[in-house]
């Protein structure tokens, strides 16, 4: 009779524990309605990159607008985000919107395309939004520190008849490199990008630490060859640098706590199982041995079910660096070559471009990447 009572007691206890764990794990196990692809923004980002490189700017606009519509607001009450914060899902369960450097690039590209369409004020709005996204960093020395964005803000303002000096001066303070003068008379804007952008890896014992790995490339600069002129581009921003200077995230704290839970439940499980084995070996109470064994298994199970991996999804087609130049050209067609050079000045990649300057159009905007697609 006492064995039956003991069995009922332990079963109740194990049942209660299982119920408690399942209740906590509800988001992971509950049936959910079909939701939008949590990676759709990443796919739009990558599609936009590829479209820009092959000169399909209409497609790039569609992809970027789709992404910006989703990332432009504030993400609250997102089911995936709730899952990402829970113990039972990795961070990648959330809707991907990208780290700030990725969102900045989406706005940067859209700004170029707005400018291409003659909407310098909307282009400026994109550059301002991009710089704004970079404002929330741990080390304020790196807040809103994209030189190109402030410079282009100033240039757009000057072209719109305003005073771009404030933005220009902000840009000048952000770099020790020589900054091109604000040339509102320039009618051709050449944007270039080259190199490999950052990637992400998960480090730490439980893969809870997000680490950005800078891309490497032999290309260090770019030159526009126009007739007998070789015009060096102002390469003012390093996307790899920007990606690595954000500092800690609130989500790192969440992942850290999840890792602590995983470790502590694993340790408790180990101790309980070891205690059960010791108790059995020493001929201790069968109640104690069974209790420790069940508890140990449950704790080990909870530890194993805990997902701590940081989100390593990345916009992996981003460039390492971006450059820009504004020149004044006569109306008509101009055959030019953009040479991407290494540190010795030797061309690594050359891209021929035809610059068509219309007499009435305010600005001709050219986008050239070292990668064709």
């Amino acid at each position: 009779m006492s064995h039956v009572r003991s069995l009922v007691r332990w079963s109740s206890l194990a049942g209660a524990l299982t119920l408690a764990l399942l209740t906590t794990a509800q988001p992971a196990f509950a049936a959910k309605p079909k939701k939008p692809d949590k990676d759709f923004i990443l796919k739009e980002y990558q599609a936009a990159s590829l479209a820009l490189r092959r000169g399909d700017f209409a497609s790039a606009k569609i992809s970027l607008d789709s992404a910006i519509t989703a990332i432009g607001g504030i993400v609250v009450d997102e089911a995936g985000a709730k899952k990402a914060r829970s113990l039972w899902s990795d961070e990648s369960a959330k809707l991907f919107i990208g780290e700030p450097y990725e969102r900045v690039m989406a706005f940067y590209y859209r700004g170029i395309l707005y400018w291409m369409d003659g909407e310098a004020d909307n282009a400026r709005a994109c550059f301002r939004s991009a710089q704004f996204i970079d404002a929330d960093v741990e080390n304020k020395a790196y807040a809103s520190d994209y030189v190109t964005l402030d410079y282009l803000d100033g240039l757009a303002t000057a072209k719109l008849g305003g005073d771009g000096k404030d933005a220009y001066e902000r840009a000048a303070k952000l770099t020790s490199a020589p900054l091109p003068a604000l040339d509102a008379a320039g009618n051709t804007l050449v944007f270039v990008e080259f190199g490999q952008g950052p990637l992400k890896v998960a480090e730490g014992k439980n893969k809870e630490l997000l680490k950005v790995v800078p891309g490497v490339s032999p290309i260090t600069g770019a030159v526009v060859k126009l007739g007998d002129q070789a015009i060096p581009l102002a390469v003012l921003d390093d996307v790899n640098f920007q990606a690595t200077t954000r500092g800690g995230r609130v989500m790192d704290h969440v992942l850290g706590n999840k890792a602590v839970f995983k470790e502590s439940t694993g340790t408790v499980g180990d101790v309980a199982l070891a205690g059960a084995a010791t108790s059995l070996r020493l001929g201790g109470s069968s109640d104690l041995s069974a209790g420790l064994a069940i508890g140990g298994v449950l704790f080990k199970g909870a530890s194993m079910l805990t997902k701590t991996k940081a989100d390593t999804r990345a916009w992996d087609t981003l460039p390492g660096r971006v450059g820009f130049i504004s020149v004044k050209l006569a109306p008509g067609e101009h055959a030019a070559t953009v040479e991407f050079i290494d540190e010795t000045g030797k061309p690594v990649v050359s891209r021929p471009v035809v610059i068509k300057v219309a007499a009435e159009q305010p600005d001709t905007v050219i986008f050239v990447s070292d990668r064709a697609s």
Partner: protein
Amino acid sequence: MNPPTYRNLALMAGAVATAFLAGCANQGVRNPSGVPVTEMKADERGFVAGTGIESQDLVTVTDKMARSILGIPEITNAKTTPRVVLEPIMNETRFPINKDIFLTRIRTQLNSKAAGRVRFLARENMRALEREQQLKQDGLVTASQDPNVVQFRGADYFLTGKLQGMSARTSQGLSDYILYSFQLIDAATSEIVWEDSAEIKKQGLEDAAYR
């Protein structure tokens, strides 16, 4: 019950408590689910997805401007119906927008609710209008009036505007203030005969998973 069973139960209870306490992965994170965006100092309150320019802002602002324009003496006391041309508005905010939508809505509001008190000139269609007039002058299409007499109206006023913003972002959230200002400018004298503005401020905090 015998004493060892009590000990076992106490051990298990302690273990369960440890598991749940250790399980608070969001511990120490304020507002882990984020704070929904709240609209401040606006005529209408509703669910919004961001702190930028949204449809409810467009409606609020353009309704106010249309009402305001109709109240000015230059419109109400005009001896002849004033002709207005829309000039593109200037966007100085950090939000890329379809700028024409503000003036389009003001125009449609005025045309639908105050028919006849103010007329708008379709300058964006001038190319098509000039082509049509040329066809009439060339005798290729019929004309109800002498096509060689200029019928296109000149503007009495220009309606334009500007969107300006201030933004702030900290670990506590982000906030955006936008000032929408519109002007009616006398085409003959360059005087600003009417000006009005609306301002909207929004703030919010993202889910911790994105911070």
